[in-house]
């Protein structure tokens, strides 16, 4: 719509007698309102750029620099080349944290994706009553602080009197010490993430589903497709970009998970044997407990690299999977 509007205004605008007409290709912003003086754009964006340079970009560049230094809180500043990275690759805590992070990420992302698409499909049903109410309820977990929720979940997953173990016990099984086990602690952490993000992502998927043209469903049902087939052949392929988006955002967040394990364990070490230490938690431990700032900066760079690699892989896999069209 804005595209056509732009074309219209450009045609109806009389050529300026003062300036030679500029070919539209040279515009920095093809959607701009040309009668407004564009130079003010520098002023309007200046606060953002100044603040961002000081508190965003400069710290990042400085981080990249000190990753090549032996740099600590006491004032040691010694260039050591790639020694931090060499040390990191030989550090079992790093690999342990990486495995934990990926495990928690998989345990949370896959159920969350399936459940949020399913929920969105239920909410998409036009005959649903009280849909505003349900939509609003879905967002409640997302506005709550991780701290408050980790306290509640920590109690619910408690070994002796946690609700989860009481249910497990009532079903005739042995109590599980969720916090002490590796996989079990990952499940506890993943459940917090799933609880927090499923509803939010369901709303994202719902918005995408509402944007699918109704004719697609009508012609599918004329062809004899039932509800399930409509979902597989119409809804899912139309959600391709949205799934990619949710996965990439989920990956960026999921590979940086730290608040849940930090609160669950009560310290930066991620459990007594580091069974739920994550990459970012490891970074914070090195930065604010061990005060090895150069080493921590190297961890930060590795997190960035891993996030970038996984995001690119995600992007291509979802493209391929959904792009096969079906």
């Amino acid at each position, binding site marked *: 719509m804005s595209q056509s509007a732009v074309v219209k205004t450009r045609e109806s605008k009389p050529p300026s007698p003062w300036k030679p007409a500029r070919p539209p290709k040279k515009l920095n*912003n093809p959607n701009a*309102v040309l009668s407004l003086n*564009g130079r003010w754009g520098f002023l309007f964006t200046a606060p*953002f750029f100044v603040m961002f340079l000081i508190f965003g970009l400069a710290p990042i560049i400085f981080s990249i620099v000190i990753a090549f230094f032996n740099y600590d809180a006491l004032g040691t500043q010694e260039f050591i080349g790639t020694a931090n990275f060499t040390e990191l690759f030989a550090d079992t805590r790093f690999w342990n944290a990486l495995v934990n992070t990926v495990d928690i990420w998989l345990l949370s992302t896959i159920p969350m994706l399936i459940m949020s698409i399913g929920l969105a499909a239920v909410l998409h049903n036009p005959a*649903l009553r009280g849909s505003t109410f349900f939509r609003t309820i879905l967002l409640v977990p997302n506005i709550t602080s991780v701290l408050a929720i980790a306290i509640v979940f920590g*109690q619910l997953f408690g070994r002796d009197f946690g609700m989860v173990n009481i249910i497990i016990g009532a079903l005739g099984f042995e109590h599980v010490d969720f916090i002490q086990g590796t996989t079990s602690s990952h499940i506890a952490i993943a459940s917090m993430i799933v609880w927090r993000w499923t509803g939010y992502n369901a709303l994202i998927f719902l918005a995408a589903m509402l944007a699918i043209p109704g004719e697609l469903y009508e012609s599918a049902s004329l062809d004899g497709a039932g509800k399930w087939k409509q979902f597989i052949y119409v809804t899912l392929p139309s959600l391709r970009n949205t799934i990619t988006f949710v996965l990439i955002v989920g990956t*960026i967040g999921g590979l940086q998970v730290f608040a849940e394990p930090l*609160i669950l364990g009560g310290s930066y070490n991620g459990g007594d044997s580091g069974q739920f230490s994550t990459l970012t938690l490891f970074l914070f431990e090195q930065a604010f407990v061990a005060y090895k700032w150069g080493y921590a900066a190297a961890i930060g760079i590795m997190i960035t690299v891993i996030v970038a690699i996984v995001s690119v892989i995600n992007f291509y896999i979802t493209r391929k999977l959904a792009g096969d069209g079906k």
Partner: protein
Amino acid sequence: MSQTEIQEQTRPKQNKKPRWQRMGVLGYVSLGIVTFLSIFPFYWMFIVASNGTDEISKIPPTLLPGPRFFTVISNVYEVLPQFNQALLNTVYVGTVVALAQVFFSAIAGFAFAKLNFKGQKFMVLFVILTMMLPSQLGIIPLFILISQMGLMDSLGALIIPALVTAFGVFWMRQVIDAQVPNELLEAASIDGAGVFRAYWSIVLPIIAQSSFVLGLFSFLATWNDFLWPLLVLNTPENFTAQVAVNQLKSSYAIDYALNMGGAFLSTAPLLVLFIFVGRRLVRGVMDGAVKG
């Protein structure tokens, strides 16, 4: 929008087989379960806080509110008398950050969406790329910077780095691009309005709703931010709600009632706020979704 909704609502009735009768039960059951799971942690927070730790530590546990709520809450204030101060600090920081983010994001978003200036494409790309970077990447230098600025252990350490975010700028750019027609701005400038006038009297009224939503999200994010305040704040007078709740955690071994009492106090204001603004937040999330 509302018209199509009405049509959608009435369509099943015109068919002889209403869709909600065919698959409604399963749908309502799953929504019921989700509603229960979404609310339960809050209910449980209150149950534990009102029963005390001993009552909860037995099988089967109490599932109903108990009589000790005010005892537990007064315990919270005994352990940390500054808890109210912490709540006030959080409201203050959240409000300032929200207002600043809306203001700076709106003007930058306006420039990116509607003005033509040099280097713009690069700048927009730059904004998008920065959103992808892990926020922990620069946390150590930021920590050093804040301490050198003399902001350590002050609310300024929370406010100043958060005044504007790449996400906010990007979001406002999308909003202004989608909601403000170019014709209106053209017409205003033909009538002699400059950039400021056009922004003030045309753009601002149109984006008021979306700005409010952005402000709410900033407020919530600030309220719930945990690690950074924990790193930079030391004295209880300067605590935010999250740091205060965390302080309860480290004061005793595991006093669930005390912890949940604190968690309840720090969450209740948000839930009350949510009753009033929940629908707008839902619309904001859905408007910002990637469609198709």
